[in-house]
């Protein structure tokens, strides 16, 4: 697995040999696989936004009875801004909650809300056991699931939640362990 020939699949949720770097990366370290949640898991957010837009539009039938023109404009503008922020916030959560597998380590970077960041790192040597869990209609249909990586000793275990092609991820990690 070389550094070049980047291969991004399923809307950048399964990136082989991606051209990214991260905080604390060693000089001789390069990412082999970058994982994000499967895009299908983001559909509820899109549906919510769609219905919220409909709701804002629906309000326009009633608001002019109680508010003047500029107030109605403000309500519309404010509603649409909030929906934009909701979409943006969810996109950021999806985009930056990544699992990274490098030639040396496995990293799980999570951002919760706006102010909390959690990074879990395990060296490949410490990886003991890999469990793949796929359950439910959508998971099976769209081929996504959870990968749990158990590490030796008291180190924190790593979880990749709702990632695409979990079996292939486990296969890649196993391959790295064998080569390592």
């Amino acid at each position, binding site marked *: 697995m070389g550094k070049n020939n980047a291969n991004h699949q399923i809307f950048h949720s399964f990136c082989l040999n991606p051209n990214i770097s991260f905080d604390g990366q060693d000089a001789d370290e390069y990412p082999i696989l970058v994982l994000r949640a499967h895009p299908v898991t983001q559909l509820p957010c899109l549906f919510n936004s769609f219905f919220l837009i409909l709701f804002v539009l629906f309000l326009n039938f009633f608001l002019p009875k109680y508010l003047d023109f500029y107030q109605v404009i403000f309500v519309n503008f404010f509603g649409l801004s*909030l929906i934009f922020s909701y979409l943006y916030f969810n996109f*950021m959560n999806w985009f930056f909650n990544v699992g990274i597998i490098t030639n040396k380590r496995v990293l799980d970077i999570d951002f919760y809300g706006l102010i909390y960041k959690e990074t879990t790192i395990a060296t490949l040597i410490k990886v003991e056991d890999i469990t793949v869990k796929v359950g439910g209609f959508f998971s099976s249909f769209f081929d996504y699931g959870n990968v749990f990586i158990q590490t030796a000793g008291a180190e924190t275990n790593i979880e990749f939640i709702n990632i695409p092609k979990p079996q292939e991820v486990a296969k890649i990690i196993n391959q790295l362990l064998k080569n390592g």
Partner: protein
Amino acid sequence: MDNLPIINNSQIIFLFFKLFSLVFSFVYLVFSVVSFQQTKMMSKTIRVAKSGILIILSIIQLLLSIFMFFMAIFL
């Protein structure tokens, strides 16, 4: 009692609207500032080729919130 100014329904609605628009737009402004800072921090943690687009989106959000706040003040 007769000397008290009479506040009619439209004035009550206006007062409520003014109060709520100011409060919510201020909360939105704070959220946007925090969101902008967080985006910058996230972009430093994971450096991707097109992270500039995300920063631009967060700036758009920040500008929107500033506009909303001023709109709420002068409404």
